[in-house]
């Protein structure tokens, strides 16, 4: 991560923590991957900042820990939308390794592979070994469970998990829950968590203080982005009902290969870019699927997400960055989106 990006995070956290207003009420951010502008809402007025203007702030200031989300690596995919997905994943890893602060861990939100082949998982493992963060948490995407009901995936990445690969862990007071919504899908439906997992989730959250920040992560979005394309989870409302009492909930998803964000009450939803190929905006094409963009634009629509957590303000700041950022200028900068959520 560049100093400029840290500067931007600091600026946003500063704005959040010093305003004396309920930040949840006004902080809403939305931007399109690769636009290079950062949008925040301050006092109800949207403000875009050129990236270069926020330079020279101290890196990592105020951040208690940081982790990175990567998603949809699709190792094995070799079609025109990106004939070399290993190289773009390597670029993402290089980006992680260049951050001044080593991430506490990495979360991969699924579609590690294209066809669940052992050779694809091997390649992924080999590449991820080079990441500065050694602890990596996984949830499967539908592409990781194409054969043998996901046995291959579970053997490699599901150690210590339950059912189809769900699990939870704590880090510095934040409770993380990895959910699986790609198993046992029903005809005509979307993503599905299933009764057993929902019961487990309810049990997992029971007894935790409402002030515990919660991070839910899963492959398919846990909010209905575009049901016509199956971009949602049939029983996600049930899962979200269990987190309603918590003061800060962040939901991280993949699957749709583009950034989408929504804040609903105390819950902040966020989807990540892919490291492999972009997909069309909902309804913008006859169907979902790999979208070919000019080669020179590819890395601007692929990327990683880093999430910063500040204990003092109990804030989570989510930063998406494309693999290749355009040169900073008055009208555009290196960031696609900054989202700073909740308290």
């Amino acid at each position, binding site marked *: 991560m560049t100093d400029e990006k840290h500067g931007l995070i600091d600026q946003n956290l500063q704005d959040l923590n010093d305003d004396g207003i309920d930040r949840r009420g006004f902080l809403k951010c939305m931007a399109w991957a690769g636009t290079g502008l950062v949008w925040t809402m301050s006092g109800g007025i949207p403000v875009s900042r050129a990236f270069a203007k926020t330079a020279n702030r101290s890196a990592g200031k105020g951040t208690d820990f940081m982790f990175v989300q990567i998603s949809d690596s699709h190792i094995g995919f070799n079609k025109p939308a990106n004939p070399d997905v290993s190289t773009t994943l390597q670029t993402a890893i290089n980006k992680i390794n260049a951050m001044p602060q080593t991430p506490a861990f990495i979360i991969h939100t699924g579609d590690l592979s294209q066809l669940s082949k052992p050779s694809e998982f091997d390649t992924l493992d080999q590449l991820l070994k080079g990441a500065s963060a050694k602890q990596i948490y996984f949830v499967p995407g*539908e592409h990781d469970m194409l*054969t043998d009901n996901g046995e291959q995936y579970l053997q490699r990445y599901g150690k210590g998990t339950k059912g189809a690969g769900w699990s939870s862990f704590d880090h510095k007071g934040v409770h993380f829950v990895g959910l699986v919504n790609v198993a046992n899908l*029903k*005809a*005509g439906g*979307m993503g599905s968590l299933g009764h057993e997992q929902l019961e487990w989730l309810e049990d997992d959250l029971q007894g935790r203080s409402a002030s515990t920040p919660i991070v839910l992560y899963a492959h398919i979005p846990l909010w209905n982005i575009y049901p016509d394309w199956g971009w949602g989870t049939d029983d996600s409302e049930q899962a979200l009902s269990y987190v309603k009492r918590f003061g800060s909930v962040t939901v991280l998803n993949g699957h749709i290969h583009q950034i989408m964000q929504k804040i609903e009450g105390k819950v902040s939803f966020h989807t990540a870019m892919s490291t492999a190929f972009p997909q069309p905006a909902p309804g913008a094409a006859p169907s979902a*699927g790999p979208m070919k963009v000019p080669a020179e634009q590819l890395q601007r629509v692929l990327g990683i997400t880093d999430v910063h957590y500040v204990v003092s303000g109990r804030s989570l700041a989510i930063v998406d960055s494309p693999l290749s950022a355009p040169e900073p200028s008055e009208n555009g900068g290196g960031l696609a989106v900054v989202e700073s959520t909740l308290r």
Partner: protein
Amino acid sequence: MTRQNVCFVSLAAPVMIAVLLLAGSTRVTASDQSSGANADVKIDNFSFGPQTVTVHVGATVTWTNRDDIPHTVVSTDGVFKSKVRDTDETFSYTFTKAGTYAYFCSVHPKMTGSVVVQ
């Protein structure tokens, strides 16, 4: 075959022709449907085309994946289940009993189709 099936087929045929015209298919024609010869289904843009195909007992239906994304062809009632089919890969199943067979893609379950065997 019941009377209801006859009505369904006569109603379905023009719809299928429309679907075929939209899909630009030249291989599967309306006469294929009614003669009960083998039939082809194309998987394209995350959909099965034609969505409903009608064949006689003994016919083989072949699905071909034209997408850049893998799909499966899985009977809702567990009658048949393809392995994952990547781009240009096919799956065939021969229907030996009359009936209506609903199926879907287990990877993208919004994709559904059916085979009517007379």
